[in-house]
């Protein structure tokens, strides 16, 4: 669930919600829903309420207590929230998570776009390249991270014995973020490539032929024709990539465990970690705040897409 990119249509449709599901103009006049239709809607809703809504309410409730996850507890009002805002570990985790998310999303998009353009052009071994570039998507983030951990700790220092790489990027607090960004790009690029390929396919070859006839050089073609037409897809990919990156967990656990010290600890870790330290209520408060942040960002992104959509892709 956490490591798969959501196709573009999800957000595109969400932004134009009523258009997505509204009945067509020539639909039948209103009639009562068939009984079977209720059977199709109520079970998901009920199950969802039990398994999602109810725990959400419990979490919010717990955030106002000092519940350790077991044993006795009492209300503490806003104490958890007050403590959160002076918590240096959490502050650093937010800073690091956002910095990581922005950087890795940017890099993923640049790589993915470049590779998609390459794949879209007339090259040899297109199928072979396609197979290779889509491959990382089917692998588990944790297992990939463990593999790369050894590469960064042992193989690279052996091959390049000097400088930060030679010391092992993961051991040093100031460079430990680099492998995480690299692995995130490695795993995240395929999904973005697919979307760009779809976008390039929708752009069509006529424009390229026209620009070739006019004698345009490849870079100019890209800058004035390809990129503007793809702009919408770039936005969508960035939005999706950012959301996935903010929730990164597997990669950090596999590569650094959050270390050295707290250097690479991410927000999801600080929340999950509360399970084992008897800080259920504190984690609940952190979770509430994180949910609010995530929702705000999503709303912001939807607004951007909607504006783009209205401006015409």
């Amino acid at each position, binding site marked *: 669930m956490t490591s798969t990119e959501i196709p573009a249509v999800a957000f595109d449709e969400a932004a134009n919600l009523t258009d997505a599901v509204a009945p067509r103009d020539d639909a039948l006049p209103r009639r009562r*829903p068939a009984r079977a239709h209720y059977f199709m809607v*109520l079970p998901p809703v009920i199950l969802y309420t039990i398994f999602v809504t109810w725990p959400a309410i419990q979490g919010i409730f717990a955030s106002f207590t000092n519940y350790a996850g077991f*044993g006795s507890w009492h209300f503490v009002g806003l104490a958890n929230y007050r403590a959160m805002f002076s918590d240096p570990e959490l502050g650093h985790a937010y800073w690091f998570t956002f910095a990581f998310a922005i950087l890795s999303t940017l890099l993923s998009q640049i790589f993915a776009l470049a590779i998609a353009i390459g794949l879209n052009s007339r090259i040899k071994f297109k199928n072979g390249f396609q197979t290779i570039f889509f491959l990382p998507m089917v692998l588990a983030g944790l297992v990939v991270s463990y593999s790369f951990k050894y590469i960064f700790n042992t193989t690279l220092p052996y091959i390049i014995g000097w400088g930060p790489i030679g010391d092992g990027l993961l051991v040093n607090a100031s460079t430990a973020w680099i492998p995480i960004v690299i692995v995130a790009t490695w795993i995240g690029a395929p999904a973005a490539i697919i979307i760009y390929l779809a976008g390039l396919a929708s752009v069509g070859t006529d424009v390229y032929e026209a620009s070739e006839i006019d004698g345009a050089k490849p870079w100019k073609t890209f800058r004035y024709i390809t990129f503007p037409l793809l702009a919408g897809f770039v936005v969508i990919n960035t939005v999706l990539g950012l959301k996935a990156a903010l929730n990164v967990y597997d990669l950090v656990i596999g590569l650094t465990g959050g270390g050295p010290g707290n250097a690479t600890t991410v927000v999801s870790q600080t929340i999950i970690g509360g399970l*084992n*330290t*008897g800080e*259920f209520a504190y984690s609940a408060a952190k979770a509430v705040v994180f949910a609010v942040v995530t929702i705000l960002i999503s709303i912001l992104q939807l607004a951007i897409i909607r504006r783009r959509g209205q401006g015409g892709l």
Partner: protein
Amino acid sequence: MAEINRRTLLIGAGGVGLAAALAPGLSTLFGGGSSSGLRYVQAKREVVDYFTKVAADYNATGPAHPVRMESQAGSLTNGFVRNSNQPAVVNSNFNNEIKLYVEAGALRDLSDRPAVERLRPDHIEFFRSLANFNDEMSVLPFSVTAAGTIYNKELFAQAGVEIPTTWDEFIAACETFKSKDIVPILGTYADTWTIDLQFGYHMCSTMDVAAFFQAVGDAGVDLGPDSAYSFEKDLPPACDRLLALLSYFQDGFQRVGYDQGNQQFAGGAAAMYFQGPWAFTALNNINPDAKEVFGTFATPGASAANTKASAGLDLCVWIPRSISGSALDGGLAFLDHLMSPAVIDDYNAVNLAYSSLADAPPQDDPQVSDITPLMDAGQFAPQPSMLFPAGIPWVNLLQQMTLDGNVGKFVRRIDDEYRRRAIRTSA
């Protein structure tokens, strides 16, 4: 708007209810399998083999409820949060997580066990100084260890150094070793718990550890520069000692881990080693002469009077309060077996620790015999890591201090974390 037929709704709800009822039933396919024995957790790495044999021997006697030992390391806290699939008996190191369970009242009161009457009073007191829930016997102490400075008798003789009894003598000894090209102390800072352990020695010898933690716990939200006791006021002497010793470690000690350290020390790479008796399991395995070569002395304080052993409740046994029925009967039976002299006294004799039974034979193994008198005389202090609440990133911050030498930042940060935690949990 369409009208919802009440019958439809009931049928729909019934369908969902049926599915929901089936799911747990189906999921018993994945059940823990009580048929395969009661869950007995013992995850102390060095003694997994020992207790595997204990469990096997117990099962061989044909008890009503055989046990199945688990040695997977990992926090047991989420078992309490889930309140399901709890182990029937746990034999674990007492640490700040166990403290959490005790103080939440989540452990069964074992005061009625026959072993309780035969326990050493000083061990019971020791446990109570670490955690207390309504004066119940939330755990039974099983093994107390005294950690100090393991030393290489041959290297000491070679350099003409006597066992130091004061801090100044300790530093002088290090200087002597250094001048003779012998590494004074072996460091294993890649494994941060070892930093924590030796910092405990310095805390032991510069303050009254139990009283200190009691005081900062009481200060609660008022902890700060103005309180009577605080980390900022009282911790720097221990920090200074820790930092002072860094120059006496071997080159590259920050990258060496515990296992590697054992190898090196067993091979005579250094004169002293800050470890507890559990390390002897490895040292004795690696070096056949270990019994003659290595001994332990208490890391000295400013004077002989402040020299204390750093004691840990290395193993204790407990049962979660939620265990009941046949699991409880089986768990209590196995617990009584663990506390029987054949098991507990034998374990402690072999592992150079102190049995919690009052009538146990004295611990006179030459590798720890120098430190035993201190333990018997009550000259010991608890290892501080047991007293830090879970959730305060104590060890990370400690490691950071050893890297940047910034004592002020470290102690103020610990005060902040403590105060913040008090804000969160008391209100």
